[in-house]
């Protein structure tokens, strides 16, 4: 999947072109699906772990999509934020676009948990899982 919005991210250096790796993308997507299942399993006992797993599931799904389409994030800081911009650009016309927009919010919550040691509330985990599941499904459908 490529479009003008993705091409703009390549042009401004947010992304760079690499050789397409469809098998690697499929493996990464499979890992994302496992993370979703794991997140559900630990949600009640370990909400912080569940949130990180849900974030990683969404992140790896978007990365899988990039990998399959021959793209990586460009050099420099803010790799996850660049990934978020790719998701919004690549899925701009998808019914799941709102979930790709919300990935950046999940990223920020995950960062506040990692760096400010904020307590994770159940609603944060549920929200992250909802976004991750929709993102994984949208990527899986597009790559199938």
């Amino acid at each position: 999947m490529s479009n003008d919005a993705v091409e703009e991210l390549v042009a401004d250096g947010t992304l760079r072109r690499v050789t397409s790796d469809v098998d690697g993308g499929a493996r990464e997507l499979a890992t994302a699906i496992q993370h979703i299942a794991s997140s559900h399993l630990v949600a009640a006992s370990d909400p912080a772990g569940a949130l990180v797993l849900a974030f990683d599931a969404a992140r790896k799904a978007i990365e899988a999509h990039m990998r399959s389409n021959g793209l990586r994030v460009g050099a420099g800081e803010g790799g996850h934020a660049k990934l978020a911009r790719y998701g919004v650009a690549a899925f701009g016309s998808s019914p799941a676009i709102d979930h790709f927009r919300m990935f950046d919010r999940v990223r920020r919550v995950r960062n506040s948990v990692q760096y400010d040691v904020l307590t994770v509330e159940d609603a944060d985990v549920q929200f992250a899982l909802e976004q991750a599941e929709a993102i994984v499904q949208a990527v899986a459908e597009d790559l199938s």
Partner: protein
Amino acid sequence: MRTSPPLLLPLFRSRAQARLLARIYLESDRPAPLAQIAAELGLDRAGVKREVDRLEEAGLVTTHRSGRQRLVRPNPESPYHDDLFGLLMTAFGPAAVVGPALAGISGIEAAYLFGSWAARYSGDQGIAPHDIDVLVVGRPDRGELYRAAGALSDILHREVNPTIVSPERWDAAEEGFIRDVKSSPLVALDLTADA
């Protein structure tokens, strides 16, 4: 009205003048008598009257009497109106527009601006704010709140970042982050206004 220039945009003569203009321009849907505006902004009445007189002479605002009260509004005929509105919105908008935007979201008990924007707004020196940090106390629908934050980011030309904490966590203040927020400059948001 003798206050130092506003740190958020030190083009204005004083913080008081900037806040007065922001109140008049950014909340023009609820024009108020001068005495009420003075009370809201914590400024003295005579100073507000002098400042409004100056702004009216310059054509930036208009006033009219309603009974014994004098109401002040932005003057849309002023050639500076649109540009001044834009400057005020970008620099001082968060205090005026974030509260009303959150008012319609159920589950929010209180909301505050914190971080570098709130610090500069409160007169604490430091680097220019990049993002607008909003502390939301309650149990709002995450998606609804984040969508509202996205819309506010477009209006304010800065990323609006909500952090949500339950009322129990806020009251207990056992987390370092919450203690830090509570001890730093906060701007309480009015959640009673309509969006």
